């Protein structure tokens, strides 16, 4: 097991931090993407140099071995998120493709004219726009899950929006802006009365909290590999088996067919019926390595270390005059969104970059949350397991310096 409180050791596992000047930067943009451990990088490199082959086709050993490696990632993900079987896992290119897949398959089949899809008003665009599209296509409506001022589901008002007309609820597990988590278990229980399926966007959860879809009870759950130390262009989608059976394919082509005639074709069994074409084989095998990396982390220690960083960040941010922090309770991930009075978030982020601090600014692909907060954007500092106490101090020092510099001009 890794000792997360020994940041120097953790950083040694990530070549990025050992690469000269770059490693000197304070990388606080982990909600956008995390760095990759050497085990993931070398696994991808090894695959291309020694094991390259297509999967699910060749009868030769190399091809069968590649298939086994690819399928072992599916098994690892099944164990990682606690699904009932590996057959409930679709390997995708990321969270965005996963949401689109469910919208265009489940949505196309089950959401009819006059039906409702409930989406929270604080979702990443990837968990909003695909629902808007299918709702428009099918003549259904998008309505809001009631959200309290503290940015969590308002369970007192939730019942008033639930009905037989609601065919799906879509919500994030952990916010990409605030790092706050939603009570998915309670939401699932509340939806049982009307048998409403619950879709959870877990893009920001996997590298911070233990996911167990069986305990959560949700029907769909997705995440991206690159936000949990894996390669870009990889991800996974959990679909409860009862929906797997009923949902039509998403894309069509090779690999997902059972029998092909000139006029008509039939589909292979799930989950492969959702994986048309040659997938990102090396990437998915790399994702398997990232899952192994995470499984080597003690999640209790992870919670304890990230909580330590969060408390320090909150304390230090409070020292900066006129700083407003958004949604700083029920944090499941050390993600901090803030603005400073009379200073534009873009100016702050651009000049923090000059000081070697890498953060995001803008609407963070979450314009509805910006509207909810009545702001047009903010700065986001998002931390991960390899960030240290020293980096928090460096970040705050740079922030104070930049604020002082910009304050001269406003």
């Amino acid at each position, binding site marked *: 097991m890794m000792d997360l409180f020994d940041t120097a050791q953790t950083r040694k596992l990530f070549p990025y931090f050992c690469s000269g000047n770059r490693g000197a930067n304070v990388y606080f943009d982990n909600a956008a993407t995390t760095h990759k451990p050497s085990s993931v990088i070398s696994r991808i490199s090894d695959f291309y140099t020694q094991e390259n082959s297509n999967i699910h086709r060749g009868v030769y050993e190399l091809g069968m071995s590649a298939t086994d490696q690819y399928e072992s990632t599916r098994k690892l993900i099944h164990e990682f998120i606690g699904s009932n079987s590996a057959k409930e896992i679709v390997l995708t290119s990321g969270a965005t493709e996963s949401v689109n897949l469910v919208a265009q398959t489940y949505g196309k089949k089950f959401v009819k004219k006059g039906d409702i899809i409930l989406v929270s008003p604080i979702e990443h665009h990837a968990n909003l726009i695909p629902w808007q599209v299918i709702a428009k296509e099918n003549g259904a409506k998008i309505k809001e899950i009631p959200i309290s001022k503290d940015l969590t589901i308002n369970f007192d008002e939730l019942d008033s929006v639930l009905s037989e007309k609601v065919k799906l609820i879509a919500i994030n597990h952990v916010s990409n802006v605030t790092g706050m988590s939603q009570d998915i278990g309670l939401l699932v229980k509340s939806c049982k009365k009307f048998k409403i399926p619950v879709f959870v966007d877990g893009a920001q959860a996997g590298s911070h909290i233990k996911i167990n879809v069986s305990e959560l009870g949700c029907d769909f759950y997705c995440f991206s590999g690159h936000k949990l130390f894996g390669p870009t262009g990889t991800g996974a989608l959990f679909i409860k088996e009862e929906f797997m059976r009923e949902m039509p394919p998403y894309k069509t082509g090779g690999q997902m067919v059972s029998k092909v005639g000139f006029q008509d074709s039939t589909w292979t069994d799930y989950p492969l019926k959702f994986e048309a074409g040659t997938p990102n084989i090396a990437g998915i095998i790399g994702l398997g390595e990232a899952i192994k990396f995470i499984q080597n982390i003690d999640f209790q220690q992870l919670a304890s270390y990230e909580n330590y960083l969060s408390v320090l960040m909150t304390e230090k941010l409070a020292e900066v005059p006129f700083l407003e922090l958004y949604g700083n309770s029920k944090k499941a991930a050390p993600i901090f969104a803030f603005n400073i009075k009379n200073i534009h978030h*873009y100016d702050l982020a*651009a000049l923090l*970059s*000059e000081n070697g601090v890498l953060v995001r600014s*803008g609407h963070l692909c979450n314009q509805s949350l910006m509207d909810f907060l009545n702001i047009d954007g903010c700065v986001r500092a998002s931390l991960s397991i390899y960030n240290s106490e020293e980096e928090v101090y460096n970040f705050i020092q740079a922030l104070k310096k930049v604020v002082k*510099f*910009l304050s001269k*001009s*406003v």
Partner: protein
Amino acid sequence: MKNRIKQIISDFSLFESWEDKYEHLIEFGQELLEVDNKSLRSDSNLIHGCQSKVWLFCRAENKKLYFYADSDALITKGLVAIIVFIYSGASAAEIIKEKTDVFLSIGLRKKLSMNRSNGLDMMLEKVNDCALNYLKNEK
């Protein structure tokens, strides 16, 4: 226009540290452009897709184009002020022909990158579009 480009490059060459360079950029924007120009801040002048809001308006007079701009962020305001300073008073043909990358020459291109966050690319594209439209309408 060539002289104005030279002047910008020469002015910025005096500054080496990021503090001095940005201080000059911010001051340049604040001195050249009006404060909170309400009439300019309309949806039709807004350049979409930037993290900060940028408004750019073009007017033609005596076969020359004149640009007016504003932004709600200090750095972006400085960037768009450089564009206004360089291209205002030039003919459409001169604008289209001019290929000097002034932002590369003053060392800001690499720092700020030509990406959507500051919209530099989109600002320059709008200037070019204004010139192209002018020539099209003239015909």
